Structures are given as structure tokens and as C-alpha cells.
């Protein structure tokens, strides 16, 4: 049995906690031990949010050690590179091409990393960087809030769980009126990654 340490980062309101809940349920249904935990500050909205999902035959710590992350899903570019040190050498990094600059950047006090800088930071750990246009794709699809499910679709390409298991867990976590569009977002995410090379 392989282990999968997933690290899902974003900004409050992007739905990464739901995404991590779904991934954890899928792993449980597939017969793995699983632990997950979220770290978020005191903000209701707009702060950094990180979810750790640990999948293995037996999991002890719910927090992933630095340098142990197998798959990073960054819903926002700055929040993705902030945690680059957690990546295992050669890890998968899936980065949504979307920037939400903090207030200090708007005020011209701080600098938001350019795409080159984002790549340069991640490259110190891995070459397997997938810059995906999730926000663009799901906006076209008609519901920007399905980004989290799109990102799950991307991540699912690198895990051995059956597509139907993912879809079942997605349906279980969402009201039925949102099933169709979220399943479509999941499929789009899978398509975006292709064969993962």
C-alpha cells in the first residue's frame, strides 16, 4: 500500500476544506487509514487555509512533516508557494493560475510573486509542476465555486482510487442541485491534467 500525503492550500472561501473532506472519505472508502486536519487563522474569510490529508495503511500524526508532501494542490498561487518547503523532492504540485493579492500588495507595500518566481520556488523541490487554469475553466463552466472540485479532479489523476468513488463522495458532500455542475468540474480537472506527464 502506498502512502499519499496531500496538502491543499488556499484562501478562506475557496472551499479547500470541503475538498480535503471529500478526498479523505474517498481514501476511507478505498480501505485506507486516513487522518485530516485544517489549519486556519481566526479569519472567517480571506485568510490562509491549509488542509493536511494523510492516507496510508496506518496513519499516526494528522500533520504532514516538512518535506513529506506527495501532492500539493494550491488553489491560489501565493498560498501554494508559501508552503513549498513541505514538498517531498519530486512531489506533484498542482497550482491554480489565480492570484488574490493581500491588502499589503494592493497598497504597494509588498510584492506578489511573479509566475517565474512561483516556478523558481517550486522547482527547488520538484519539476512536476502543473499550472492549471482552474478558475478560468470553472467560470466558463458557469460556477466559480466549483474550483475545489475541479482541483480534486486534477489530484485524482495521481491517486489509484476509482473515478466512481470520487464522484460518489462528491455527491455525498453536496446538495443534489449542485451535483451535475460539480461532476462536470471534476471531469474538467481530470482532463486538464491529462495523463499526468
Amino acid at each position, binding site marked *: 500500500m502506498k502512502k499519499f500525503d496531500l496538502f491543499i492550500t488556499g484562501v478562506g472561501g475557496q472551499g479547500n476544506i470541503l475538498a480535503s473532506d471529500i478526498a479523505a472519505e474517498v481514501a476511507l472508502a478505498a480501505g485506507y487509514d486516513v487522518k485530516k486536519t485544517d489549519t486556519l487563522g481566526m479569519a*472567517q474569510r480571506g485568510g490562509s487555509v491549509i488542509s493536511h490529508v494523510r492516507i496510508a495503511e496506518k496513519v499516526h500524526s*494528522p500533520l504532514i512533516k516538512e518535506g513529506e508532501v506527495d501532492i500539493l494542490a494550491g488553489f491560489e498561487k501565493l498560498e501554494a*508557494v508559501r508552503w513549498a518547503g513541505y514538498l517531498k*523532492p519530486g512531489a506533484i504540485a498542482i497550482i491554480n493560475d489565480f492570484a488574490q493579492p493581500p491588502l499589503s500588495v494592493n497598497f504597494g507595500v509588498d510584492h506578489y510573486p511573479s509566475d517565474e518566481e512561483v516556478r523558481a520556488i517550486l522547482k527547488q523541490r520538484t519539476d512536476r509542476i502543473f499550472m492549471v487554469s482552474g478558475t478560468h475553466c470553472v467560470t466558463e463552466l458557469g460556477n466559480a465555486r466549483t474550483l475545489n472540485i475541479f482541483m480534486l479532479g486534477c489530484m485524482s489523476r495521481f491517486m489509484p482510487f476509482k473515478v466512481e468513488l470520487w464522484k460518489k463522495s462528491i455527491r455525498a458532500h453536496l446538495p443534489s442541485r449542485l451535483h451535475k455542475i460539480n461532476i462536470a468540474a471534476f471531469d474538467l480537472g481530470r482532463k486538464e491534467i491529462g495523463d499526468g506527464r
Partner: protein
Amino acid sequence: MKKLLSGNEALALGAYHAGVRVATAYPGTPSTEILEAIAPYKDVYAEWSTNEKVAMEVGLGACYTGARTLVCMKAVGLNVAADPFLAAATTGINGGLVIVSADDPSIHSSQGEQDNRHYAKLAKVPILEPVDSQSAYDLMALAFEISERFDTPVMLRTTTRISHSKSVVNVTGERAVSTKPPSFPRNVQKYVMLPVNARFRRPLIEERLVKLAEFADTFPFNRIESGGNNLGIIASGIGYQYAREVFPEASFLVLGMTHPHPTALLRRFAGQVKRILVVEELDPFLEDSIKALGIPVSGKEFIPRIGELNADIIEAAGRKMGVLAGKPAPPKITVKNPLPGRPPLLCPGCPHTGMFYVLASLGQRLKLPGAKEKEQKESTLVITGDIGCYTLATYPPLNAMDTTACMGASIGHAIGMEKAGLKSKIVAVIGDSTFLHSGVTPLIDAVYNQSKITVVILDNGTTAMTGHQEHPGTGITVKGEQAGRVILEDLVRGLGIKDVKVVSAFDIREVRAAVRYSLDRPELSVIISRGACAVRTPRGAVSRTIEVESCNQCGICLLIGCPAIQAEGKQPFIDPSMCMGEKCTICQQVCPKRAIKPSSELRAAK
């Protein structure tokens, strides 16, 4: 049945299956979700209490009738509830009484860090500490049994990572409730703590502790997991998990009951291993008592006593101690430009923004981050603050809070500054839930001692910070049912305060007029600023837009600190996906050039 549950959900389910009939709490991170998970059960009475002290007292009263009772709070909540907690330890219980103390190492969302196991030691009551959701579920049932068997309240202590991480629980139990109807046989010697009766109870508490210590030696959740004999780990709580990951070869003594400790078991374990490392979050609580037995152990000389632990920290400790081989650390990530932080902010459309903008502009403290520091002058207005989302107004650009200590402290702080002779005007700012929690008694103090401060109650109709719980001012219970409602202005007027105003939080002119009026008058005043929390308000249909032709780039709209207002160079613009539109319009009201307009108007003009 296997379920993926958070520690808090597992505690709630464990309590439900253990037959809990009454559950009380005041919301507080990381404990809030326990009561929320219990509330939907129809056969449990659950309430958000006014504060933790009341939660504890209601819980104690309930358990006196024979009902199994659960009381939940965050670490600092037990400071508020300390008085009835120690009283409960003295009277003992009738139905089982379990108190969950959810500690917050690393201060994710608290005003301080504290290890509440010291409270249980002070009260001489037992502590159970789960290591994951499964043991949270299992220990809850045992906590009720221990409570009833030893006539004692039981503290069930978690830390953030236990409460807020999900792990697999094999749910084996079913709800079992005592069929005995509630009854309260009068027993003055047990329940009336006149000094003579308290003195009678006092030796019983010591006897209880001795019996509990004997019990701890056979308690199945205090157990040895045999491994190699070079290294022994004594661990409790989440520390066990980190150590299990880092030291797969070691022997373990895992303690599910950390007070009183199992003396014989500790000695037996010490005889089996060469060196011992104690792994526990926060203070050397176990370590000190083990050392007092004369057993040599290591602990806090290698493991920090501040903040949350994790496997990286335990690994580093193992290397320092010389029990783990050194491993080359992966090269550090280098960044060309430092990455900007993302401090939490008041939300777009937050009803607190307008009030803080007014207070900050009257106090001349509005300043863009990074703007040049002006010469430090004594502020003409001091703003004492309190605990809630609004504490975020401390950050630039509002800079609108000068003190925050603990729940309800803003009003007392303000009175104290005035009475000490501070010449500045003083405003105390407090949220609705916090005011009802512990702002009423200091306001009575202000009336009684003829204070001249101004108290602003930010009434957003919810306990927003912890995730929108109901409170006495909303008139809705934790179960979502109609309840009694405390009307803030009636309450305040009832205390005898004459200058009481209720203003609309989104009307800057009204807010400014009220603040100016009250600050200028030499008497106690209360301003209730009312406006619904933005997170619970549907977004307005028409977002605001900045008309570039009319905008002179003065930057005043940026000073309200709304995350929806961004800038490209000097030119501010509004992100329509974040703007609350006609539900807010604060930026529109403060723009001196009237350049901010409904986006529909601007489109029509074009």
C-alpha cells in the same frame, strides 16, 4: 460502523451514546463544534449558555438531578468558569458530569496559551486525554462512569489538533439513557457549601484522589505498548501520535488518564527501558509528577513547552537527545523577494467597518500600511477593545483598537483609565455576544461609579468569530428554535443609563453624529451599532464601482480596509465578486469626490 469524525464530533457522539441528557457550552475555538454536534439530538437538552460560568452552573444543577451532563469550553473559558468548577469538585455530582476543556496551543484563536490540566490538579479531579477521535469517543463513556463511580466532575482535555482533526472511528455503541426520572433528594451536607459542610467535604476530596490514583493503575487507557528497551516514551494526547511516527522502535506508555497518574504502572515502565522521554503538549505536567516519583525522565529540556507540537519538533528533540540518528535536512527553500503575509481582515460589507472608520478618523489614526510614521502624539481618543472579529480593527489601515485582554474587559479598562485620570476621551468597543457574556457587570460598575466613558456595542446579531452561534440577543436556541430574547437597548436603559442610542451600522453620517454627541457629553453613554454580519447576509445585487474620471486617487476609500477595494498603482478599483453592493455602501459614503457609484448606474451612463 467506521466513520471519519473530528475529535469534537467523536466527543459529541460518545456523550450521546453515554446517555447525556443535558449539554451546555459557550462557543470558543477549538471547542465550539461539540455542542453543535449534540444539539440536533432531540432527546438531549442543549443550550448556548450566556458564558462559561453559567454553562458550568447550569451543568452542575442538571447533574444534581441525576442527569448525565456535558459542559464544553475553550481553555480560557475555564478561567471564567473556574469558580463553579472548583465548587463542583467540592460538592461532587449526582449524575455524571464531564467538562471538556479544549486547549489551544500555538494560540490559533485565543488571547493566550494555557495548559488547563493545572486546573484539574487544583480542583483535585481526574483528567482524561484522548489521542485521536476513536479514543475521544471511547473515553467520553468512561468519563461518565468515572464521574459517577468516584462522585467527581471529570475533565476531558483536548488540544486543538485532537479537536480539529478527523480520524477513523469504529462506532460500536448505541444510546443508553438512565430511565430514572430526574429527582433531587435534599442533602444539605453535600450541596450547601456552608463552611461547616465544605469542611466536611474537604477530606473526602483527598480520599477520592487516593482512590482515583489506585484506579489509574488499572485503567485500560493507561497502557504499555512494548517495543525496544533502549527508549521509552511516556506520552499523552496528540503528542503520542507524533512520537509514534518518529520512534517506531520505542516502547510506549500512553496515558489516557493524566491526573492522578498511575504510580505503579510508571515504575514498572521505568524498569523496562533505559531512557525515558515524556512527550506532552504545553507544560511539563506529567514530567514534573513523574520526576517527583524519583523516576529520571527527559522532556521539556528537548521539547518546547510553548506552542503546538508536531512530528518535526519531536524528531528534532530525538536528535538533540541522541536517540535518533541525524538525517541531512532537505535544503531550505530560497525566495528572491519575501512572500507577503495574509493577515485576517474584516470582511467586505462588515457592519463593524463604518464604526471603526469613524472612531479612527476622530482619533486621527487612519494610516495606510507602510505610510511614513507621523510624530508620535498622545492620542486624543483611546479605544479599549474586546474579543471578537472586531479585534481585527487593530490592524492598519484602521488602527482602531488599543487594548484587548479577555472577554468583557473593554468596559472595565475604560473605567480604570478614566478613574486613573487619563485626559483623553475613552471609548470601549464590545460585540453583542461578548457584551452579554461578560460586559453587563462592568457596565453596572460604570453606572454605579459614575463613569463618563462611551460604550459602543457592535450588534451584528450573532457570535461571528466562532462561526455564527446564537446568543441571548438573537432569541434563537442552539437547536434553531425560538427562545427568549434580551433586547440590548432595554437592558442598558434598565441599568439607568440615559444617553443610549441605536444607530444603523451602515449609515456613516448617523454613526459619526452619535459618536461625536456622546464623546462631547460628560456622562456615561452607550451606542448600539446595529447591522447584520456580512457572512450571513446575501450579497447585494448591484456592486459598487469607482468612476475613474471622477476619482482623484486620494486613497480615502482604501482607508476603510475593505478587502474588495484593491489598487493598481495609485488607482483604486472594486472587485465586483467581493463587493456587498447596496447592503453596505460605506466606501460610497466616505468618497469625497462621489466617484463611487452603483455599477448599474455607471453602465447605464456608458
